[in-house]
C-alpha cells in the first residue's frame, strides 16, 4: 500500500501526521491551561481538589501525546529532532522540567509524607501550565521565524550563538504565539471545568476566565497572524533545491492551498464562537465547539509551515541550512514502515474516546470523588 508512494508523497504524508498529532496535543493542553487556573477558578481547598481531580483523569493523555509527538518527529524527521532539541536546548529543557513537575504533582499532592507539601505540587502544576504552553508556542512560532543554526556537509547541526534557544524570546511573533497558546489553553481549561465539574461557583468563575483569556487569546493570535501573513517566508525552489526568501510566502501558502485556508478560517470561527458560547452564554457545549475549532487551526498552521515548498525549520544563520520535509526526513523505507504503524492511530483514538465517554458519564463532584477512592 505505502510501498507505491513516492518519497515526496511519504514525506508529505508524515508532515500531515505530525500536524495532526501537534493539533491533538494543543487540544489536550487544556490540562495545562486548567492547571494555571487553580487559584483563580477555585477559592477553597475542596474546589481546588475538584479541579485537580477533574484534570487528573486526563493529564496522562496530554503527556503521552507529547511523548508520541516527540517520537513521531524523531522517526520521521530526525534532523529536526537533532537540530531543534540540541539548539534550543534551554527552551526544551524548561519544557521538560515542567512536565517532570506535572507528572508527580497529581499523585503526590494529597499524599501523606509528600516532603514538599500540597501547595508546592500545586505550584508545580501552575508552572507546568505556563511553561509548557508558552514555550511550545515559542518553538512552533520559530517554524515561521527561523532559528540561528547551521547544518554541515555531514548533516550535523550546530546552534551558532550561545543563547541556546533564549534568543527565540526576542522575537515579537514568537512571544505572541507563546501567549496566544497560553491563553487559548486557559480558555479550553475553563470550558473543561464548566462541562465536567458539578459546582455552580466553579462554573461562574470559569465563564469569567473564558471571557478574559478569550479576549487575550484573540489579541495575541491576531498579532501573530498579522505578522505571519505579511512577512517574507522561507521557500524552497523545487527544481534546484535552493532556499530563498519569498515575499508573503505564508499568505501565498494559504491562497495556494484553499482547502487549508477554509479549514483554518472555519477553525478560527469555531474557536471564537466557542468563546462566545462559553463566556457569554455559559453553554456547556462550548468546550467541544472550541476543541473542534482548535484542531483545524493548529493543523492548518503546521501545514502552511511545512508544505507547498516551505522550510518548516528555517535557519536565519544560513538559509541553505534550513530544514524542509525533503532534506530532514527519514529514508523511504523507514517512512513506509512508520506509515503502516500510523494506521493504528484511529484505533488509539477510538479507545481513548471510549474511556473518555465512560469516565465522563457523570459530572465530577465531591461524592463521586469519594466513591472512586483514588483522590488526587
Amino acid at each position, binding site marked *: 500500500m505505502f510501498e507505491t508512494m513516492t518519497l515526496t508523497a511519504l514525506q508529505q504524508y508524515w508532515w500531515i501526521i505530525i500536524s495532526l498529532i501537534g493539533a491533538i496535543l494543543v487540544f489536550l493542553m487544556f490540562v495545562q491551561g486548567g492547571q494555571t487556573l487553580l487559584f483563580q477558578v477555585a477559592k477553597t481547598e475542596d474546589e481546588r481538589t475538584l479541579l485537580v481531580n477533574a484534570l487528573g483523569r486526563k493529564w496522562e493523555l496530554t503527556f503521552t501525546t507529547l511523548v508520541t509527538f516527540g*517520537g513521531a518527529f524523531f522517526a520521521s524527521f530526525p534532523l529536526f529532532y537533532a537540530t531543534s532539541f*540540541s539548539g534550543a536546548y534551554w527552551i*526544551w529543557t524548561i519544557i521538560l522540567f515542567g512536565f517532570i513537575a506535572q507528572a508527580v504533582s497529581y499523585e503526590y499532592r494529597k499524599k501523606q509524607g509528600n516532603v514538599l507539601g500540597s501547595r508546592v505540587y500545586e505550584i508545580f502544576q501552575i508552572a507546568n501550565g505556563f511553561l509548557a504552553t508558552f514555550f511550545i508556542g515559542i518553538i512552533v512560532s520559530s517554524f515561521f521565524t527561523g532559528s540561528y543554526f547551521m547544518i554541515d556537509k555531514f548533516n550535523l547541526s550546530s546552534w551558532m550563538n550561545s543563547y541556546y534557544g533564549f534568543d527565540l524570546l526576542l522575537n515579537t511573533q514568537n512571544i505572541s504565539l507563546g501567549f496566544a497558546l497560553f491563553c487559548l489553553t486557559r480558555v479550553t481549561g475553563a470550558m473543561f471545568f464548566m462541562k465536567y465539574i458539578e459546582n455552580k461557583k466553579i462554573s461562574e468563575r470559569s465563564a469569567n476566565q473564558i471571557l478574559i483569556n478569550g479576549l487575550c487569546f484573540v489579541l495575541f493570535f491576531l498579532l501573530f497572524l498579522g505578522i505571519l501573513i505579511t512577512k517574507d517566508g522561507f521557500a524552497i525552489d523545487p527544481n534546484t533545491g535552493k532556499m530563498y526568501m519569498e515575499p508573503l510566502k505564508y499568505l501565498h501558502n494559504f491562497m495556494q492551498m484553499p482547502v487549508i485556508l477554509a479549514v483554518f478560517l472555519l477553525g478560527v470561527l469555531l474557536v471564537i464562537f466557542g468563546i462566545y458560547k462559553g463566556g457569554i452564554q455559559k453553554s456547556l457545549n462550548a468546550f467541544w465547539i472550541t476543541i473542534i475549532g482548535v484542531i483545524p487551526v493548529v493543523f492548518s498552521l503546521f501545514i502552511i509551515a511545512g508544505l507547498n515548498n516551505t522550510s518548516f525549520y528555517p535557519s536565519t544563520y544560513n538559509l541553505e541550512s534550513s530544514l524542509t520535509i525533503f532534506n530532514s526526513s527519514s*529514508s523511504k523505507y523507514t517512512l513506509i514502515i512508520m506509515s503502516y504503524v500510523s494506521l493504528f492511530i484511529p484505533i488509539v483514538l477510538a479507545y481513548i474516546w471510549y474511556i473518555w465517554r465512560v469516565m465522563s458519564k457523570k459530572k465530577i463532584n465531591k461524592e463521586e470523588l469519594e466513591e*472512586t477512592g*483514588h483522590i488526587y
Partner: protein
Amino acid sequence: MSISDISLVDWSRAQFALTSIYHWLFVPLTLGLSFIMAIMESIYVKTGNEEWRKITKFWMKLFGINFAIGAATGIILEFEFGTNWSNYSWIVGDLFGAPLAIEGILAFFLESTFIVLMFFGWNKVGKKTHLLSTWLVTIGSVLSSWWILVANAWMNDPVGMTFNPDTARCEMVNFWEVAFSPFAIHKFWHTITSAYVVAALFVVGVSSWYLIKKRHESFAKKSILVGAIFGFVATMLVTVSGDTSTYQIAQKQPVKLAAMEGLFIGRTRAPIIALAILRPDIPISDTVNHFIFKMEMPGMLSKLGYRDKNAFVPGIYDLVYGNQYQGIEPVFKRMERGTIAMIALNKYKEAKEDNDTIEMRVSLSEFRTNYKDLGYAYLDKPEDVVPNIPITFYSFHLMVGLGFYFVILLLVILFFLWRKTLIKRKLILWLAVLTIPLGYVATELGWIVAEVGRQPWAIQDLLPVSKATSHISTSSVQITFILFAILFTVLLLADIRILLKQIKNGPKE
C-alpha cells in the same frame, strides 16, 4: 569548542546515566506490580472474594505513586537523545526513532489510557471490563518495554541497516531484523523478568513486614503467596535469559564479555570467576596475573559463551592486540580501515560537490569496503575499545550473586508458606524486608554492566560516544545535570516517604 571536548562528553554521559539510573529505580516496580495486580484482580473476579479486591487496590495505590515518576523520568530520556546527543539522533535516527514512535503509538497510549479506567473505574464499569483494563495496562507496559529495549539492543548489535554516504547516516533496510533481533529478544526477556523479580521482592518484603508486625495477616499471606510464586518463576526466567544474553554478548561484544569476566588473556576451557579481587591499576598490556585472589569454575565461560566447554574465549589482550592463532585482528588494523573509510567518505562528499563522477565512484567503493570499521577512525589508541574493567567486572559478579540469593530466598519463603510456618520465621521475614533494596541494586547493576560494558560505543563499532554528543556548551550541560540531580533526588525522597506512609497505613477499603 571541539566536539570531542572531553568534559562535554563526560557531562552528557553523566546526565544520561543519572536520568537512566533514576528512571530504572521506578520502572521495575511499575512493570512487575502491574502484572502482580492483574493476577490478584483475576483471582478476585474468579472467586468473588472481596479480600482480593482489597489486596489489589492496595498494591494499585503503590503502583500509582510509582508510575507517575517513572513516566516523568522516561520522557526526559527520550528527549535527551535530541538535547544532548544530536549527532547520534541524526546518524541513527532513521532506525532509532522508529521504535520510540511505535512505543508511543502502540504501547504507551494503551497503558496510560486504560490506567485511568483502572484507577477510577471500579464503580463505573463491570468487574470483567475493569479486569480487562488492568490487563491492558500490563500488556501496554510489556509492549512499551519491548520497543524501548529493541532500540537499546540495536545500539549493541546494529542489524538491519546500511550506511548511506549521501546522507551520512545509518538507514534501516530490514525492519524485522531490527524488531526481532536475537539480541533484542534476549535483552527484553532478561530485563523484564529482572523487573518482575524486583516487584516480587517488594511485594514479599512489604507483606513480610506486616507479618512481623502482626498486622493484616491474611492480606499479607495472600500477597506473599502471589508475590513469591511470581518472583520464583521470574528468577528462573532471569537465569535462563541471563544465559542466552551472555551467549549473545560473546558473539556480538566479546570485549564486554571479557571485561565482565575479567578475562585478560584468552584461553580454551575458559573459567567463570565465582569470586575474585582485581589488582588495581595494572595496564591491560601487562600479562601478569591481574587478580589478588580468585575462585574459578573451569570451562564454564567457554560453555556459556560458545556452547562448548573446550572453546577458546578471547581475552582483552587478544581483542586489543590481536591473536593470529585464533584469527583475531588487532584493533589498530580496524582503526586503519576506519580511517580509510572516513577519508573516502570525505572525498566522496567533495567529489559530489564538484560533480566528479569518477572520483565519486572510486571513493564510494573504498568507503563500502571499509565502512564497517568507521567508528574505529575516531579512536585515539587501540586500548580505547576496553570499557572500565573494575566497574563492569564487580557489577556483573555482584548482580549474579544477588540473583542466586533471590532464588534461594524465594524458595525458602515458599517452603515455609507451604508448611504454614512462615509467620513464625522472623529471621526469614526480616531477610525478606531487607532484601527489597537489594532487588533494586541487582537490576541497576545489570544496566551498569550493559551500558558501561559497551563503552566506548554509542553504536557498536560504528559510532563512539565521544562523537555522538550535541554541539552545545559544557556549562549548559553542567547546569542541567545539577538541576536534574536535585529535582530527581527530591522526588525520589518524596516517592519513598509516600510509599512508606502508605505501607504504614496498610490496606483499607
